[in-house]
């Protein structure tokens, strides 16, 4: 059992992080905290992905004088996918933060409950 956990320590850590982000995103009424939890969730997926590319005893996939010997380098695919994921997550965070800024300007709150109250009061 312990062996299993140690063998997959990164997968387990990333799963715990993922669920942490998930539950916070569902429960927190504060919009900014929701965005932060979404970022935690994304980081968890990146951790999972990056750990999948690792192969013990090899180096990063940038060819040096060793030439193209495939047994020297780790898997380059997850690194590329993580890069894509990070860019997407940055873009989405920027978009949602801008939205929150506008919502704060309109209703004066970033709390989802107060927001729904404020909307009701305005009759919208």
């Amino acid at each position, binding site marked *: 059992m312990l062996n299993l956990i140690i063998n997959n320590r990164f997968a387990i850590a990333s799963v715990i992080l993922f669920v942490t982000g998930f539950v916070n995103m569902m429960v927190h009424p504060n919009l900014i905290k929701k965005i932060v939890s979404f970022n935690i969730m994304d980081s968890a997926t990146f951790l999972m992905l990056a750990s999948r*590319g690792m192969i013990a005893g090899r180096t990063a*996939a940038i060819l040096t004088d060793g030439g193209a010997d495939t047994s020297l380098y780790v*898997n380059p695919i997850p690194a590329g996918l993580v890069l894509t994921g990070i860019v997407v997550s940055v873009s989405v965070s*920027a978009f949602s933060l801008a939205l929150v800024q506008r919502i704060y300007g309109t209703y004066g709150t970033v709390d989802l409950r107060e927001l*729904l109250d404020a909307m009701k009061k305005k009759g919208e």
Partner: protein
Amino acid sequence: MSAFTRWVDGEAAVPLKTDFKPVKERKPKEKHASLGDKQRLDGFLSLYAKCAVVISVLMLIVLLIGAVALPTFAEPGNPTDNEVVHRYVGSAEEETGAENVIAGMILNYRGFDTFGESCVLFLAVCCVMLLLWATNDKIKAEAKACEKEAPPDVILQKVAKLLLPCVLCFGMCVLFNGHVSPGGGFSGGSILGAALILFAVAFGADSVRRFFTAKVFNTVRITGLMIYGSMFGVYIYQGANGISSNLAHYIVLVIDIAVGLVVMSTMYGFYSFYTKGEL
């Protein structure tokens, strides 16, 4: 008049609930109703929170079972260590001209994904502009409330003068050597963008505006993306139709620089729209 006849008459949309009394009659009730609504909302939200926690605990258990069953970490011979990886490492230099296999992979083998990714970045700027670009008085007033240009700070300015050349050189270096060493368009572009932001913070946005106007911002962003789009479009046409060309050999470098320009202007655009609602 029964609900049914009203429904047939088209007066009420539904016989279930809809009751089209004039608004005045309902007014005395409203206070009470809104209180009830609030309690109901609170009740719903706490129930929702409890459900969310239960669901998440279940999810955690299921995911942990899955995580333990995954292939062992960092072992050679995992399913991921397959012929695709060998091909990428083995022939990336020859097929794409990039010693940095990751750059070769994202800009050539899987270049269409990366084009999509650049479009995500482009879309994010467009969304931020849609939201925060102060074209009418309402948004302008909101933006004014957020804007508080700090007075010039001597320490910041001195440090910025010292740091900026280094940051710019480092950014250029990362950007232009992306195909042979760690780095590339995305990382180099963000470093350059950070340099611009530092400049704006230290010397005021007006001093950036002297050389980085809205026109320059748009031109750099659109040119970068257009270079990427059109070049990759041609490359796909040649690749899929079996037309031989040596476009593949310089596509990585050119696209890397184009992406770098896009990322740089995007980063500064985010900062600028967040703080002032314009460039």
